[in-house]
């Protein structure tokens, strides 16, 4: 069993869901992020958040995959002040929806004053609502941006065990682990991390507080990043226990702090969920066909 704790499924196809379920992925977390094209109205942002707490969750359930998400204003769109103010106003409506496991992904892109302002405001919201935080570390000026993200989180009184720092690489991981935060890695070969490099990191650092994800989205990315990395790690001699921690248990422990994500959600789903949301895991049920409801389709 695997968890992919960073997957933008809203951009992926039903083929991806089938392949992910077949590869053993039982749960995904969909962080709220930008969608390639900037949003310019708070209304489109509301509908996006509604889609990831509602329809996408339902869609995943039809393939036997449990879908969770995070709610937040991303760093890129924080630079549109009018939009950002609107999103901050509606964010408390979404932060407590079923299956929202964190405030995220938030943090810095170009490290502008507006990004800083809304990052801090959202850290305060996470504190008020007792939710974990998923931090998106910047692509550029990464090392300093990562350090700064953690400084600011601590300044606002968050406990490192409540904060997942994502998109790490060889240059950032040591400090993140040393300061007690969760260190996540996105197996997104063109810009972030490759699976062979990830295996080296597991060998060097072990698996404590390390989380592997795919960050698959609308770009060239790999929805099977987690299972493929796990297989390569096992083949390369990484202990099975470490693979299980990095590709399943740690994500569950970190995001389970929200109270919104439990192993029983997929191992022993409550009847109400079976009636409404979740078709059960076809692998666990002996390879039965995913149950896809009849509906009016996408035309």
């Amino acid at each position: 069993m695997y968890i992919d704790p960073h997957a933008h499924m809203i951009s992926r196809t039903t083929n991806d869901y089938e392949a992910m379920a077949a590869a053993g992925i039982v749960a995904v977390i969909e962080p709220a992020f930008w969608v390639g094209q900037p949003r310019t109205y708070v209304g489109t942002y509301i509908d996006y958040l509604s889609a990831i707490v509602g329809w996408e969750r339902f869609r995943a359930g039809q393939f036997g995959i449990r879908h969770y998400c995070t709610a937040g204003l991303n760093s890129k769109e924080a630079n549109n002040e009018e939009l950002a103010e609107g999103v901050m106003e509606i964010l408390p409506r979404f932060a407590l929806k079923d299956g929202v496991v964190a405030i995220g992904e938030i943090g810095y892109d170009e490290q502008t004053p507006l990004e800083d302002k809304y990052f801090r405001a959202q850290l305060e919201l996470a504190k008020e609502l007792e939710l974990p935080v998923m931090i998106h570390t910047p692509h550029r000026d990464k090392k300093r941006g990562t350090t700064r993200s953690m400084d600011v989180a601590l300044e606002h009184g968050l406990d490192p065990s409540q904060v997942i720092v994502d998109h790490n690489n060889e240059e950032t991981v040591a400090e993140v682990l040393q300061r007690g935060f969760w260190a996540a890695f996105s197996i997104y070969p063109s810009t972030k991390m490759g699976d062979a490099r990830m295996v080296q990191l597991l060998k060097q650092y072990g698996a404590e507080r390390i989380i592997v994800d795919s960050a698959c989205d609308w770009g060239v990315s790999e929805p099977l990043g987690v299972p493929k990395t796990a297989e390569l790690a096992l083949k390369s001699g990484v202990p099975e226990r470490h693979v299980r921690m990095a590709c399943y248990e740690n994500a569950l422990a970190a995001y389970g702090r929200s109270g919104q994500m439990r192993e029983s959600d997929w191992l022993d789903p409550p009847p109400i969920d079976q009636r409404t949301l979740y078709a059960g895991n076809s692998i666990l049920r002996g390879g039965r066909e995913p149950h896809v409801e009849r509906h009016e389709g996408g035309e």
Partner: protein
Amino acid sequence: MQIHAPELLSRWLEKQTSPESWRWLSERIARGAATPERDVFITLGLIPRRLGRADLALDAADLEAADAARPGWDPRGWSVDGAARVLVLLRTVAQGDKFPENFQRLCRTADVAEAIAFYRGLPLYPQGDRLEAQAAEGLRSNMSAIFEAVAHNNAYPRDHFDDHRWNHMILKALFVGSALAPIQGLDARANADLALMLFDYAHERWAAERGVSPELWRGVGSYATTPPMLADLARVLANGATVEREAAALALAASQSEDAAPILQSAPDLARRIETGALTWQTLA
């Protein structure tokens, strides 16, 4: 004495939640219409965390009291969190004068469990006539549990939908594989236009070599009257599986047309069971 819906919900919830949870909820709604919108949203979000998601336990007397409070209100299948969310709406936003606008905003950002609760509460809200467009949005959902929150065990569609909306609800229920039997007013609201739509739909299914739900023939009511319709029913009566034959027989028995009875008599065993009350839509469901 008749007890109003919010009092009933309060009684049921107080009985089924811990004193601490109940006190929390009571405090969250104590300010009524003056509750800030942000607090309403946070209360709605916290309810499952504070009160849990158990089924609402109701006995026959509770169901009777519900029907007396609002004719047709059927809270069977409600959950504790769903009932608490409806109570929050009734005690806060519904106390103000802009309920339809606020209800629309709440539904637009609802998660699945919230949407189910909000739509199940439809018969209980003020200004019901102005909620019809949002109820229709619930019917458009691709998530069958949300569609069914409007369509099933809910008096709102029967009381507020015009024939056009009603007919499309019935047809969609068949289309997505939802049962018709839990739809309140199913028999009373049958109409000629719906019968035409249902026969057309049956033909589409047959053309694609797919079966037709026996419940489709119940939706036709007494309006299977034209010769092509009667010929269809005669064919199902002659060649269908047992349950399909029974359904066709019931539709023929209900038909307003004089030409229906002789066709029904071609299956004397079914005709007799209908006459004696041994075969009804209830026994079929």
